[in-house]
């Protein structure tokens, strides 16, 4: 590269190269993560792209508290965010259990905050970044980390009960099934494990053809999950034997939503699929204008879909027909959350919208001065 510098036009070339290198930084810094959101007890807990957890009153969108309160570190040299390694974004939706809210951060740490004021009660450092949402069941919080471990922690004080070595990054939340006494762990190393709930011992493992980035779901005796190989897999939850697969046209990032004998899943091929749980037969498909990255949400016969095309769709779960759709004007890569009062949608640029589930009209948005 140095031969450029010897030339008469070297300065111009250096500036050009620097400009091109920095072009990946863009004029405005791209999002360092996509938002993760959960709603509990009338409060929306959303980890936005600023690397902070915002607690908002679900009925008004007014801010209750923000964690952490201080400003985060710069996103990188000259504001360049890619491929610079960031330090504190949060991909994982927070999880609420009792009076604590649990947040897994990209700075390797899971935080337990009180729901009243967002004050930290304890934290637990893992060996690498946390992408998956923690899962709270009774007095245990299950945390998956990119350090290849799934941890079972005491929900009250964060002390470790057991850990399971999964052999690769775990970006999917563990699925805890108390009835069968099992935890299902999906990994980016193409594996899905069934692990004993009491001590973290593996009972079986299944190998997919691609990475599994989202939590599996249970459909009776079947464990269903999507993979980067574009397939939806159904395996026997007791034995790990494959029952059927369904091929979509793109990576499957979201957890399948199971309603009675039908499962719904989105794909990177821009489609939403409805499949028969029993054998994976396709019932219908609906095409959006962009990637359907995350999990769909079901309520009252409607399937709510957030798409990269900036639209929120409400589909008839029986037929796949559009009941309504509305443009949020920003990419949606995260799952919507549905309550009786509203459908909450968070966008890639860090905004939260509360929509009327009946017609998609806006109730409020956060931050209030924007969008």
């Amino acid at each position, binding site marked *: 590269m*140095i031969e450029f510098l010897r030339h008469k036009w070297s300065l111009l070339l250096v500036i050009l190269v620097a400009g091109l290198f920095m072009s990946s930084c863009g004029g405005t810094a791209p999002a360092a993560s996509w938002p993760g959101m959960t709603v509990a007890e009338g409060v929306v807990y959303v980890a936005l792209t600023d690397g902070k957890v915002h607690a908002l009153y679900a009925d008004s969108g007014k801010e209750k508290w923000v964690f952490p309160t201080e400003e985060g570190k710069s996103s990188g040299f000259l504001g360049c965010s890619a491929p610079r390694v960031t330090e504190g974004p949060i991909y994982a939706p927070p999880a609420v259990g009792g009076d604590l809210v649990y947040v897994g951060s990209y700075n390797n740490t899971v935080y337990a905050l009180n729901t009243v004021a967002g004050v930290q009660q304890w934290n637990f450092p893992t060996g690498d970044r946390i992408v998956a949402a923690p899962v709270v069941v009774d007095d245990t919080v299950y945390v998956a980390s990119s350090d290849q471990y799934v941890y079972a922690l005491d929900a009250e004080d964060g002390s470790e009960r057991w850990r399971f070595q999964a052999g690769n990054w775990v970006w999917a939340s563990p699925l805890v099934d108390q009835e069968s006494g099992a935890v299902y762990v999906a990994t980016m190393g193409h594996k899905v494990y069934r692990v004993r709930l009491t001590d973290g011992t593996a009972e079986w493992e299944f190998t997919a053809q691609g990475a599994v980035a989202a939590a599996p779901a249970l459909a009776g005796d079947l464990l269903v999950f999507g993979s980067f190989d574009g397939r939806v897999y159904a395996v026997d939850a007791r034995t790990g034997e494959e029952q059927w697969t369904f091929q979509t046209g793109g990576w499957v990032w979201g957890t399948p939503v199971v309603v009675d004998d039908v499962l719904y899943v989105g794909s*990177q091929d821009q489609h939403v699929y409805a499949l028969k749980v029993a054998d994976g037969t396709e019932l219908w498909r609906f095409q959006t204008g962009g990637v359907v990255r995350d999990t769909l949400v079901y309520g009252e016969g409607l399937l709510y879909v957030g798409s990269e095309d900036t639209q929120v769709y409400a589909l008839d779960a029986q037929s796949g027909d559009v009941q309504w759709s509305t443009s949020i004007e920003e990419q949606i890569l995260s799952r919507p959350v549905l309550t009786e009062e509203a459908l909450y949608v968070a966008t890639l640029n860090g905004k939260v919208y509360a929509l009327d589930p009946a017609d998609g009209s806006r109730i409020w948005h956060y931050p209030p001065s924007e969008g």
Partner: protein
Amino acid sequence: MGQLWNTIFIQPMIYASLWLYQFLGHNFALAIAVLTVVVRLLTLPLTLPAQKSAKKQQELQPKIQAIQKKYAKDRERQTEELMKLYKEEGINPMGGCLPLLIQLPIIMAFYQSIAKVLADTPLTLFSLSSFVAGNAALTSLVPLSSKFLWLNLARPDPWYVLPILVVFTSWFQQKMMTPSTPATDPQAASMNQTMQITMPLMFGFLTMQWPSGLAIYFVVTNIVSIIIQLVIDMQGGRSIRDVFQAVFPQMTSDAGTAKGRRKKR
């Protein structure tokens, strides 16, 4: 425009790097090194004339400086005489520029494709997915194993070994290109000195921030440039010893003096 750029440049390079990764036993550091060499060899017809032209211009520095000195007050005549000299020596002063500009997109695309393939965050992986989702064989490789020796190729080198190598190889390469005769113009000499130090340091600083996979690319591309320059020098009648003497004049002269002293005793 972005789509066209991705289709023509980024996608083929992503495919090539992933295929190499698969072929080389899932070792992405090796894949980067091999692909860097391949890209440099493929762009050789573009870089070689520039490198040769630059070298020839440096060899002509004493003559150029003499003309500049002689016609310091007559710019028009100075340009005229310089052009005459270039013509006599068969040099096109702008000839080196166009090939360099043409190869810039290739270098940029290579850099961007490495950055994309090294995706280890959900968002960067999401960005990569649009390039490889249609190819089952390549999709099965994702996410790549980014471990190599002490390095996580997707993150900066924690021991700063690669940034140091980038600084050294950049400095060495630049030093090879520097004329052995000192510039008579003090301003030019000062600029040369500053460039020789600041540019390698700047590249070193940047590689401290970037994923170490990209630092490997910089080190390998510098080494390839050094080898090419060495071949050009040797074709011009210089030996490896001459080249090293030009790069490390102090060390070689010290060694020569010490040898001389020993002989005297």
